[in-house]
């Protein structure tokens, strides 16, 4: 089972005693804040967790894998996530989280 917004809301409800409506709204603002910032072209750095940065991709030739027709993949901007040293160590079983 994957973790979704609903589990985060339940966690805030049980660990902090925020009511469900508040917990839901705070959780939504958390992801919205990150998304809006990235949409403005600014990166987001969450110390102890990781950085969301933006990369400019040049146009490149591509192919539709289904039809084999060649097309040009246009220039675009994409989001990349770089986990912090701390998170990398934590998921590998050494070091405390945050």
């Amino acid at each position: 089972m994957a973790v979704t917004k609903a589990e985060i809301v339940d966690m805030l409800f049980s660990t902090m005693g925020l009511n469900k409506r508040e917990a839901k709204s705070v959780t939504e603002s958390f992801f919205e804040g990150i998304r809006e910032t990235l949409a403005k072209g600014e990166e987001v750095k969450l110390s102890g967790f990781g950085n969301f940065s933006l990369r400019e991709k040049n146009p490149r030739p591509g192919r539709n894998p289904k039809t084999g027709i060649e097309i040009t993949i246009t220039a675009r901007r994409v989001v990349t996530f770089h986990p912090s040293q701390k998170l990398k160590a934590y998921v590998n079983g050494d070091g405390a989280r945050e």
Partner: protein
Amino acid sequence: MTKSELIKYISAKHPLLPPRDIENATRHILEYLSDALQQDERIEIRGFGSFSLHIRPEKVGRNPRTGESVRVPEKRVPHFKAGKELREQVDYAPASVS
């Protein structure tokens, strides 16, 4: 944007909640996400993206200088894939391939 700026952003949307609560909620969310990844659990946030753990199995590598075999232990790496909405908001041109 840094973590403290994200906290300010969320606080501005919740004038009735003490900033201290928003700060704690942010910390709880990041710890909860870190714990999920540490337990190799997927995280799926609609419209934002998903986090998962990529596991690179143990392998026998070679020291390129000496040619000596070395055991490279299994490595776990957190991975993020942007969701459709985030991808579209961040890109400047509508995608030509979908």
